[in-house]
């Protein structure tokens, strides 16, 4: 009995604060949030009625949400694809022993030090002022007008800035992977007469599978959650055409004060991210084992 009491004291000393904070900041709000989606709470009145899954059904008919949701999927797809392509290319070039590779690594990582708000404003200036100025001077129609004024181009502006922001980070992950590949395997393949392309596709890429798992997972997660970059670069505009899901949830809850529906949309986001990242991790783990 005495040792049981000692265990309790030990738990409280070592894990008490973490457990309390974790429960009160993450778990309880999350569970309470799931409950809120089943009510008609508007955030102001103290009373809320239990309405079952009606919020979820109404979301299915909410065209602005469906638009924002599909747009987010499209945004995530292109961002993750280009982030990882460019990150791998950069990592490959920066581990090949060229001059000044450390300086390049430091430079390419810089955007990740800075918050999305500032990055968004920096690029807002580039898209609104610098590029149109260049476009008009040299007569290049593509950039003569601000990209942020057209729904189509504003979407690509978001993708470009996202790729610019994260490719340096994911590059670091690929560098860590590439550096970890034993040099003798590479040498052996060269002796066996493998060309550069064969070496990349047959040896380097399979051995790099764990880096792909991590990097694709992180870029998926981050682009699904993007909020501050979206807010600072386009504010969701023009005409809500670039409002990604995070921003949509925010405005539904805090601006339109539909808390029940807003929270239900957040839960749908959670389920989507959970499903997509689990599938991705499962598939890439399988690829790792086979490699």
């Amino acid at each position, binding site marked *: 009995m005495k040792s049981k009491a000692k265990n309790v004291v030990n738990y409280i000393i070592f894990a008490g604060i973490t457990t309390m904070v974790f429960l009160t900041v993450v778990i309880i709000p999350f569970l309470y949030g799931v409950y809120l989606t089943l009510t008609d709470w508007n955030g102001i009145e103290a009373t809320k009625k239990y309405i079952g899954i009606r919020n979820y059904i109404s979301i299915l008919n909410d065209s602005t949400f469906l638009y924002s949701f599909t747009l987010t999927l499209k945004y995530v797809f292109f961002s993750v694809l280009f982030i990882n392509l460019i990150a791998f290319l950069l990592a490959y070039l920066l581990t090949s022993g060229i001059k000044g*590779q450390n300086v390049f690594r430091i430079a390419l990582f810089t955007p990740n030090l800075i918050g999305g708000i500032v990055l968004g404003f920096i690029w807002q*200036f580039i898209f609104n002022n*610098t590029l149109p100025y260049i476009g008009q001077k040299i007569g290049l129609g593509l950039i003569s007008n601000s990209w942020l004024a057209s729904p189509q181009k504003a979407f690509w502006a978001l993708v470009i800035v996202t790729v610019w922001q994260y490719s340096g980070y994911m590059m670091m992950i690929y560098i860590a992977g590439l550096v970890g590949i034993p040099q003798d395997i590479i040498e052996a393949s060269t002796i066996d007469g493998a060309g550069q392309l064969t070496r990349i596709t047959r040896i380097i890429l399979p051995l790099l599978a764990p880096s792909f798992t991590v990097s694709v997972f992180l870029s998926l997660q981050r682009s699904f959650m993007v909020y501050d970059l979206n807010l600072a670069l386009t504010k969701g505009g023009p005409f809500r055409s670039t409002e990604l899901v995070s921003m949509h949830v925010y405005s539904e809850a805090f601006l339109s004060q539909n808390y029940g529906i807003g929270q239900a949309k957040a839960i749908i*986001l959670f389920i989507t991210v959970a499903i997509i990242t689990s599938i991705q991790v499962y598939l890439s783990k399988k690829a790792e084992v086979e490699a």
Partner: protein
Amino acid sequence: MSKKVYKDYIKFFIVFLISLLYILPFIAVIINSFKTTNDIMANPLSLPTKFSVSNYIKAAEKMTYLRGFLNTLIITFFSIGGIVVFSAMTAYLFVRKKWKLNRLVFSLMIASMIIPFQAIMIPLVKIYGTLNLLNNMWTLIYMYWGFGAAFAVFMYHGFIKGIPYELEEAAYVEGATEFQTFWKVVFPLLKPVTTTIVILDGLWIWNDFLLPSLILISAEKRTLQLSTFYFYGTYTADYGLAMAALILTITPIIVVYLILQKNIINGILKGAIK
């Protein structure tokens, strides 16, 4: 010229061009931060005609830069401090004692890592609002402890598993308590993970926008990210000022990066492989 050298030149050139693309936006902002708004409108590519820091002085004043900087510093410092201290102790207990409760809480933490912040923010604001705890820096710090706990415990857990128990036994023989043993023997060995956690969480908390924007309501409590956001919204038309504000906001982190870049890059690499 040999083929290998020739190839290296091409590679160097490609990387150089890409790196330029990564740096040019910053350079554009720096150049324009020294110009008047009229000069920027006339030509955003021209160099400043005279070197004047008046934009910086005015921007710093209008965005109450010093206060924002101090607020951010305090929030980041205490958030990281709490995450490191509490998570390290928790992970140690979880590794050394295989109690059912420990396994339960640990699995709950791992599972919670896939919950996006958006799925928590609405009830979070509701609950802490009802308790009258919003608009308080310490509430924000407390929340960072909660949001940072899972990842930090996970990282420490992985590292502590590799530390041989014999080291601690010696301390027990000499009559040290578990608390003392942890702080005197184990914690110093955790330095590499601690560095990684400090860097990753430091970047996250210093640059975070959404959570502080929900918690900190009054202007004098704003972090740098928040003051930049509100300042930029008010002064969008005054480009010179706005550019100076952006540079002011990013300067502290760039300075720290230039001083500690080796540690920062290593910390990120270690955090990436986990």
